[in-house]
């Protein structure tokens, strides 16, 4: 990591500290924040163009030079799939002290998002800044994923570990485990004991997990005909798809089941949208202390922007239309700031509604990916 990137990271941290709470109807982003975002984005693009050779090659193949990019919306986005094939990083091999992989049991080759101590610190500043803007610091986390020592390459678990440390909870707050086949399972006894304990202590819980981990929990509770009523003020945050790890439920049905089995009303169940290729996350619930108005939509923090791009024309879609989600994330300082996902969403005035993933690979025997 170069001095110029260190310098950028330091200034971005200041920007994050200043703007983490500026979203939502009551306290919108200031006009100068928009200008600062645009300036930082172009600056970071120039740095990555200079220091990320794999990214630069993609830009050049598109005929993009530094001078041709005059607005952050023109920064060439890299498809998430490219993280499986290329080393999209500004870090020299010896500087790469950590790597986040994409999840999924069917992946032949995962995405690789390299980090160093400084970029991890920036990741945490970003993740913490926006998570804390949505979830109260006094909530006690109960985490349905395996602990970080079992899943060192999961960016999600890294974030959950940060949340646990920030809230001074013991490592036992993680009640998931890694099975022998590499899949994520739940220690049901411990999960149930912790749920019961929270009710006994009358301590509101912050229940964190993937959608499939909640299905595992709910199915187990249903089997035993058990229902909990978590203390008032408890929150649930679920994230990610199912990836073939449990039966698949429509979002509303999952939330209804969570309400029924855990006693947390749907208004207090939120979703997170994140991925290993990003360093910022989007949430679909209102700001801490404010109710969620109207239809839920995902919003990124002030240091990231989501655009919805028409897959047909490649241009940004209008409100109400469907497009592929593209994100410019300033916290992706040492990799690529502009990421083109394969996720479809509907553009909302203040963000987007997630629809799901485009089918990149056909399931019939052949894979798009070359053999590893």
């Amino acid at each position, binding site marked *: 990591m170069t001095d110029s990137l260190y310098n950028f990271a330091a200034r971005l941290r200041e920007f994050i500290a200043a703007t983490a709470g500026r979203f939502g109807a009551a306290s919108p982003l200031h006009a100068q924040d928009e200008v600062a975002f645009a300036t930082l984005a172009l600056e970071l693009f120039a740095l990555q163009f200079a220091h990320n050779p794999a990214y630069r090659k993609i830009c050049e193949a598109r005929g993009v030079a530094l001078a041709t990019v005059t607005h952050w919306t023109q920064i060439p986005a890299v498809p998430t799939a490219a993280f499986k094939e290329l080393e999209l990083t500004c870090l020299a091999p010896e500087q790469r002290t950590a790597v986040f992989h994409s999840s999924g049991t069917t992946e032949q080759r995962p995405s690789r998002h390299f980090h160093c101590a400084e970029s991890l610190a920036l990741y945490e500043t970003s993740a913490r800044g926006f998570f804390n803007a949505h979830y109260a610091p006094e909530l006690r986390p109960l985490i349905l994923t395996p602990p970080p020592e079992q899943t060192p390459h999961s960016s999600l678990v890294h974030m959950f570990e940060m949340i646990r440390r920030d809230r001074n909870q013991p490592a036992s707050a993680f009640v998931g485990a890694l099975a022998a086949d590499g899949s994520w399972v739940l220690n049901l006894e411990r999960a149930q004991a912790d749920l019961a304990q929270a009710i006994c202590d009358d301590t509101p819980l912050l229940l964190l997990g993937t959608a499939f981990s909640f299905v595992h929990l709910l199915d187990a509770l249903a089997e035993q005909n058990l229902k909990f009523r978590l203390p008032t003020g408890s929150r649930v945050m679920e994230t990610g798809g199912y990836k073939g790890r449990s039966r698949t439920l429509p979002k509303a049905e999952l939330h209804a089941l969570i309400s029924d089995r855990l006693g947390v009303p749907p208004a207090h169940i939120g979703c997170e949208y994140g991925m290993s290729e990003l360093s910022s996350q989007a949430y679909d619930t209102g700001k801490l202390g404010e109710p969620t108005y109207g239809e839920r939509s995902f919003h990124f923090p002030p240091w990231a922007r989501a655009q919805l791009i028409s897959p047909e024309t490649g241009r940004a879609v209008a409100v109400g239309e469907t497009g592929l989600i593209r994100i410019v994330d300033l916290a992706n300082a040492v990799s690529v700031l502009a990421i083109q996902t394969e996720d479809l969403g509907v553009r909302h005035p203040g963000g987007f509604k997630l629809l799901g993933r485009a089918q990149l690979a056909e399931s019939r025997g*052949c894979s798009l990916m070359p053999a590893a």
Partner: protein
Amino acid sequence: MNLPSYFFADLPPEAELTPTMITEACQALKRNREKYLAARSTPSLVNLLGELGAEWRLPDFPYRKLALEQGPALTGFSSATLEHGLDAFFQELTADNLEALLVQELGEGSRLDKFAAAEAESGARRQALARGPELLAHVAAGNLPNPAWMSLVLGVLTRSAQFMKCASGASYLPRLFAHSLYEMDKKLGACLEIAEWRGGNLAVEAALFAEADCVTATGGDAALAEIRSRLPADVRFLGYGHQLSFAYITAAAFAGGRLANTVEQAAVDVAAWDQQGCLSPHVIYVETGGNVMPERFAALLAEALERREAVMPRGTLSPEVAATIASRRSLYEVRSAHAPEDTKHWCSTGSTAWTVVFESDPRFQPSCLNRFIYVKGVKNLTEALQAADPVQGQVSTVGLAAPAAQAAELAPELARWGVSRVCPLGKMQHPPLAWRHDGRPALGDLITWTDLEV
């Protein structure tokens, strides 16, 4: 012109079909068949179908006009693509071709009417009579109308009452064909039913299967296995599973000024029915070692697809399908930036209308279709077949561009490998009427024989 309500599929979408309605409809179809169809002669049916084929090719034929006017909104194909597809099918629907089909399948053209001997049997004092199913049920897949139309034609030839269940949202073109048949011959039309529902409506489907003698079904392998498991034991099942196709171009196909034509024929095959049929190519294998390298062919094919788009535009896609194309394109863009010697790609600008991807890796790659084609270089056919190993047994058609003598040498190799149809490049989506779908007898599978030894 509004279509009258003859068929279930003409009812408004909110109308729900019940098992009783299906049972009663099937029984009425069988009664009508007994009254109006069972005793019809083969020549009268052949002439009627031949006339219908000719009508459909007339620009003013009302059903054709409807198909071209309303089809784009209801089927997702552009008017020009529909026209191309309609003509390819109805050109083949002639009395001569139907007679040839009967002889091919039955050995002799009148055996659905009376005991008769095929030429080879005439000395053996044997005759035979062919009978069709009383009620033939079809479970038609989405996308293309040709298999559904052909099923209906075959069922008319076998004098069967027919009930066609279309996939949801895919009944329009089969329905138009059934209406045109009804219009031409109301009694024959009274032996037909077209309905549409989402597959897996078990009670309604059980009612249909309970009345049928024979069920034909087109669809994915899992869907077919599932349908088969629900059929009564005495019902004959003809399943047409998931198949795919590719093209093969020998180096000699470019010689002697044939390059431009070969490229054009490849574009015809990619564009026909927006590449959605089992007969459309996913990959075009091009032999290296000639004077046209596969990359150059790919570039020329891109130009040909662009020209074709101007006269025969691809249909409108849902965002989901367009997103698949966009996502694949962006991956190939990254690969071509990093290893241009291994990957190149050409894309329509401002749309997903067509995409050509050249890859040096010959491994077969299923396309996401809608005019998205892979071009891959190989030394020879053996290498291509090795590369296509993952889809061996699922390949319907190989469109072959090669001089006649060479084609005659390659065809047996393709047959031994398991390909069920080899045709000239440019004709992949244009099979003759009598072609054997998935390598099975077209009409022969439907009938039951009575042998007579005299």
